[in-house]
C-alpha cells in the first residue's frame, strides 16, 4: 500500500463525505428537519452547473448558477412546503384562516414530505431534460507522482471541503445570526418574543443548507454522472455522517468525514471497495451504539474529563 495513495484517497473520501453531508447537517442541525430530498438538491446544483456550462458559461460561473438554482429551490420549498407560509398566505386571504402547520419540529412528517419532493424533482428533471444531459469534463488535469497520478480537481475538492466547514462553523457558532437560528429551532415562541424574526431565520437557514447542497452538486458535476437519479448516491454517506456526528453538527460532520474517510480509505486499500463500503457502514453502526452523543459528544466527554482532573 502506497502512503501517498492512501493520503489522496483519504482526502478524496473526506471531501465526499463532508460535502455530501454539510447541507443536510445545516438543515438538520439548525432546524431539526431531515431533508430526504437533500440528494435531489445536490442533483439540481449539478444540473444547473452542467446546463449553464453547456450553454457556454465558463465553469466557475456555471457553478454559481447551480448554487443559485438550488438556493432558489430551497427558498420555494421552505416557503411553500416546510413552513407552509405561502399556502397559508393564500388561504388566509381566501378562507380567513391558515390551513397547514409548519413542518418544523415534525421530524418524521418533514422526512416524508421532503422524500416526496425528491420524487417530484427526480422525475421532473427527467421530463424536462431527458434521461441524461451532456456532461462537463473535469478541469485542471492531473498531477503525477512516480507511477501514480491524481486528479488535481479532486484534490482541490478536499481543500474546498475544509473551507466550507470552516465558514459554516464561523457562521453558525460565532455569529449572532447562527445563535439566533439555533435559538429559533429550540423554542420559536420564546425566540420571537426576544426580537428574533423567526420566519426569516428559518428561511435563511434552509436556503443556506440548500445552497450548500447546490455547491456540492456544482463541485461534483464535472466528476460524476449527471442524471436525474444521481442524488441517491450522496444520501447514505450524508445521513451517516450527520447522525454519527452528533448534536454539534458542523464539528460532527468534520469528525465523521475524517473517521469515515479514513476507514473507507484504509479498508478499500487493504481489502477492496466492497470492504471499504461495509466497514464504513459498520463503523457507523458501532459509533451510533457506543457514542450516545455522537462524535461531538465524545469530544465533549474527553474535554470534560480532562478538565475534571
Amino acid at each position, binding site marked *: 500500500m502506497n502512503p501517498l495513495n492512501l493520503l489522496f484517497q483519504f482526502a478524496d473520501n473526506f471531501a465526499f463525505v463532508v460535502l455530501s453531508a454539510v447541507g443536510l447537517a445545516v438543515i438538520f442541525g439548525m432546524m431539526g428537519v431531515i431533508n430526504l430530498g437533500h440528494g435531489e438538491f445536490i442533483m439540481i446544483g449539478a444540473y444547473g452547473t452542467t446546463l449553464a456550462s453547456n450553454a457556454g458559461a465558463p465553469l466557475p460561473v456555471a457553478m454559481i448558477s447551480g448554487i443559485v438554482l438550488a438556493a432558489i429551490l430551497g427558498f420555494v420549498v421552505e416557503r411553500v412546503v416546510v413552513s407552509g407560509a405561502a399556502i397559508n398566505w393564500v388561504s388566509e386571504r381566501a378562507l380567513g384562516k391558515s390551513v397547514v402547520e409548519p413542518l418544523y419540529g415534525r421530524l418524521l412528517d418533514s422526512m416524508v414530505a421532503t422524500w416526496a419532493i425528491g420524487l417530484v424533482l427526480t422525475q421532473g428533471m427527467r421530463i424536462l431534460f431527458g434521461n441524461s444531459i451532456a456532461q462537463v469534463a473535469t478541469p485542471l488535469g492531473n498531477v503525477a507522482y512516480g507511477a501514480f497520478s491524481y486528479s488535481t480537481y479532486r484534490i482541490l475538492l478536499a481543500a474546498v471541503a475544509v473551507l466550507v466547514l470552516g465558514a459554516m462553523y464561523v457562521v453558525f457558532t460565532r455569529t449572532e445570526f447562527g445563535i439566533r437560528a439555533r435559538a429559533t429551532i429550540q423554542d420559536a415562541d420564546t425566540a420571537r418574543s426576544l426580537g428574533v424574526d423567526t420566519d426569516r431565520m428559518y428561511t435563511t437557514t434552509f436556503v443556506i443548507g440548500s445552497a450548500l447542497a447546490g455547491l456540492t452538486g456544482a463541485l461534483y458535476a464535472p466528476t460524476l454522472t449527471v442524471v436525474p437519479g444521481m442524488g441517491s448516491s450522496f444520501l447514505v454517506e450524508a445521513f451517516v455522517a450527520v447522525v454519527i456526528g452528533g448534536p454539534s453538527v458542523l464539528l460532527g460532520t468534520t469528525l465523521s468525514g475524517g473517521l469515515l474517510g479514513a476507514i473507507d480509505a484504509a479498508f478499500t486499500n487493504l481489502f477492496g471497495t466492497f470492504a471499504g463500503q461495509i466497514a464504513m457502514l459498520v463503523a457507523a453502526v458501532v459509533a451510533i451504539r457506543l457514542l450516545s452523543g455522537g462524535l461531538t459528544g465524545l469530544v465533549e466527554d474527553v474535554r*470534560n*474529563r480532562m*478538565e*475534571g482532573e
Partner: protein
Amino acid sequence: MTTTDTDSTAPDTSGRKPPAVAATGPGTDTLLQTDGLTKRFGGFTAIDGVDFAVEEGQLRCLIGPNGAGKSTLLKLITGRHEASEGAIYYDGAEITDLRPNERVDQGIGMKFQVPSVFDDLTAFENMRLPIQRVVDGDLEPAVRDALERVDLGGQAETLAGELSHGEQGRLEIGMAAALEPDLLLLDEPVAGLSVEERDEVAELVTDLNADGIAFIVIEHDVDFVADIADDVTVLHRGAVFREGDIEAIRDDDEVRRIYLGGE
C-alpha cells in the same frame, strides 16, 4: 476463588459493605441511606460526598440555594443520574447500580421539578399507568378512586396537558403515590401554585405521610416546609450544610445568609 462473607445477614451488596451508620436489620428503621455520594459533571462537582438518611415514614424536607444540588441528589436516588462515587442503600440493600424502574419496583416514587405528566393522555389514562401495575382485576374503579384522592375525579377525561399547573402537579403526585411506594421524592411540588392550591398539596402530602409513606420534599417555599415537616436538611454546594428541625434552621444565621435572606 473464596470469599469470606463476614456479614451474612446483609443481602447481596455486590461486594460493597454497607456503612456502619446504616442499620439494616429488622427492628431498625432506616429506609434510605447514602454513603459518600458524589456526582461530577465534567469538572464540576454537583454532589460532594453526601451522607444522608431517611427513616421509614419520615417526612424530610430538603432546602438550599439554587444550584446546591438538590435536584441532582434526587436524580441520583431515583437513578436518573449515575453516581460518580459512593453508594445508595434502600431498605438495607444497595441500589446504586439499579435502573430507575427497578428502584421504583423497590418502592421509590418521584415527582419531577417540571411537571411531567403525559400531556397527550387524559388524566384517567395517566392514572391508569401506575394503577395497572398494582391492581390485577378491574382497573376502572381503582383509577377513579386514585383520581378522587387527588381531587381530580371531575377531570378524568381532560387531557393532562390542558390541566392547570397545579392540577398537573397533583396528578403527578397521585400517580407516584398510586404505586404504593414507601418513599416519595417531590421536587418543588408547590412552585407556581396559588396559596390555596399550596395548601391542598400540603394536605395531600401530610395525608400520605400519615399513611406511612416517607417523603423527601425539595421546596423553596419555606412556609410550606414549615407546614408539613419537622426535619429539614440544608444542602449547600453539593454537601449537607445543616440538619435539624425547621425552627432551628430558620433561625440559623448562616442559613439566612446563604439561603433565606431577610434580616
